[in-house]
């Protein structure tokens, strides 16, 4: 069974047909990279899995999106609950205007965790998982804005991990960061794979090659090619994929 799956998924922004019949599945403990030129629909597709597209007016969805085999667009699904199972990391670091500790504790608090010891414990483990603990353990009370961009992004990852999701959606998580911070995030993704299903949207071919097991190439709202990362980069079946990964367009 796939951890994440979509069947003939169509998405429309008003009259614009943004996703055209996407059918694919992603397994647990694997990293899947979504690549493709800007506007190809890869971020839109990613946001279907935690229903972030609900926030936009005039969005219409046809087809099925399954998380652990459950259709998440059926009426009985509580969106808030879904989002605690499907965590998300955004393109730009977006910490809350709160302390480092409170940023990580936020997800626990909004989901009703009151036990202080449990919260403190979860904050520590999450920060350790995100490889940030050693850098911030002495200044947990400081504002999250005092951290560097790379640290902020790892804080956002820790924040997403604190509520123990089973899936992690990453929307270009390293595009706003310097090479050293990027390397740290990639290392992190590699380690997190053991416990999570990870999707990473990226514009960086090398990054996709380094971190992912599978790669999906999107073009104009269509899934052009999906397979082992190795195969996509070395022997793509579709000429559009070949042109893109070799840098001829995009």
């Amino acid at each position, binding site marked *: 069974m796939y951890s994440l799956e979509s069947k003939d998924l169509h998405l429309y922004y008003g009259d614009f047909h943004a996703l055209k019949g996407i059918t694919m599945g992603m397994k647990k403990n694997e990293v899947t990279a979504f690549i493709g030129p800007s506007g190809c629909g890869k971020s839109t597709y990613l946001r279907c899995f935690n229903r972030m597209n609900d926030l936009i007016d005039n969005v219409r969805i046809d087809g099925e999106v399954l998380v652990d085999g459950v259709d998440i667009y059926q009426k009985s699904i509580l969106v808030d609950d879904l989002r605690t199972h499907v*965590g998300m990391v*955004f*393109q730009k670091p977006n910490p*809350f205007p709160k302390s480092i500790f409170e940023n990580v504790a*936020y997800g626990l608090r*909004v989901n009703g965790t009151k036990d202080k010891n449990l919260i403190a414990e979860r904050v520590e483990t999450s920060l350790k998982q995100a490889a940030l603990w050693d850098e911030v353990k002495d200044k947990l009370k400081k504002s999250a804005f005092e951290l560097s961009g790379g640290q902020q992004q790892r804080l*956002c990852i820790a*924040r*997403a991990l604190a509520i123990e999701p089973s899936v992690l959606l990453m929307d270009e998580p390293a595009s706003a960061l310097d090479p050293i911070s990027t390397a740290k995030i990639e290392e992190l993704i590699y380690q997190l794979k053991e416990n999570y299903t990870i999707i990473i949207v990226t514009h960086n071919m090398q990054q996709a090659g380094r971190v992912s097991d599978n790669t999906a190439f999107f073009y104009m709202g269509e899934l052009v090619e999906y397979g082992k990362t190795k195969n996509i980069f070395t022997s793509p079946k579709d000429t559009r994929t070949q042109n893109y990964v070799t840098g001829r367009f995009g």
Partner: protein
Amino acid sequence: MKRYFHNFGERLIEGILALSGAVTSLTVLLIVVFLFKEGLGLFSQHPVSEGGVIVVNNQNPVKELSAKQIKEIYDQNITNWKEVGGKNQPIKIFRLEDITDYYPEEQLGANFEYLPQRLSELVSKQPEIIAYFPEQYLSKNFQGHPIELENITLGSFLGGKEWYPTIQPAVQMGVLPLILGTLWVSFGAILIALPLGLAAAIYTAEIADNKVRNTLKPVIELLAGIPSVVYGFFGLVVLVPLIQKVFGLPVGETALAGSIILGIMALPTIISVTDDAMRTTPRAMKEASLALGATKWQTIYKVVIPYSISGISTAAILGIGRAIGETMAVLMVTGNASVIPHTFLEPVRTIPATIAAELGEAPQGGIHFQALFALGCILFLMTLIINVSVDMVSAKKKANR
């Protein structure tokens, strides 16, 4: 050549812009200097009513009294000279109209030509007397000495509890009731406007869809464009009778009426500023909250409000500023009694309303006139403090980013 003209044009425009900046600053400066020059003149004035004189018998050791003591004497709260530092003898009050009790009309002359002489006689005969009459009846060889009045001090001006700027024989210039009235009404207004404005702003910024928002925003901004006299009229005709009926009061013109009207008037400012502040909350930050399983309302009160808190405080302070300076509507609905208010259901008199109502009848350059200017200075300082705090809050906001 063309280039030369181009440069000249640029210079000319720069010059005009600099000039208008300078003229504006100079005008503001001039107004402030004028305000304070007139206002501070008050403290070199004797508080005796214009053209009047207060005299006592020559044997009376009392030489100087404060305006408050004179009022107490004339109100018969002080009845013995001992209480104001004189001999142990009862005080006999004399007003000019009492003269016929002492002298028949023929002794005063047909045109009161003997009046100064009779007054002098009367004061010299009565050791307990205190007399107040117009200065023109003070004869050259008057038997008795005039009472010196203490100058108005800043302390008695700010701390005085009575505001009777035209009372005779000594005017009472205590502005405490007016300051407190202003603060009460403004405080009440913000108490009403802040929760309502905050709720409306949350609705327009976060909950309403674009269609509702695009109708609601112009309506709210229209509220700011209604002339204040119209608000006052509305308050007088609708609100005042309503308050009178609901609370069973003898009069409906109360601090509460002023607070409600001012609250409504401050609403557009509060809603607009808060709405703008909330809408600067980055979309990414709200999405991050929702992505962690927070509900919409949790996101609003845990992320949006903390993020825009300095904008909200700015809105509140601007709202208070609007309320403190507002004149016409308050003048019409608050009843204008210059007493220190104890509840919201009493009439109050605010500083702006006092200035507007009394400036017309105060002779230019007189003590009353200057007292009104001093009130203007107080109001100016109050709004200055408010503006400075807005700047400080916004500066803090910038530092936080």
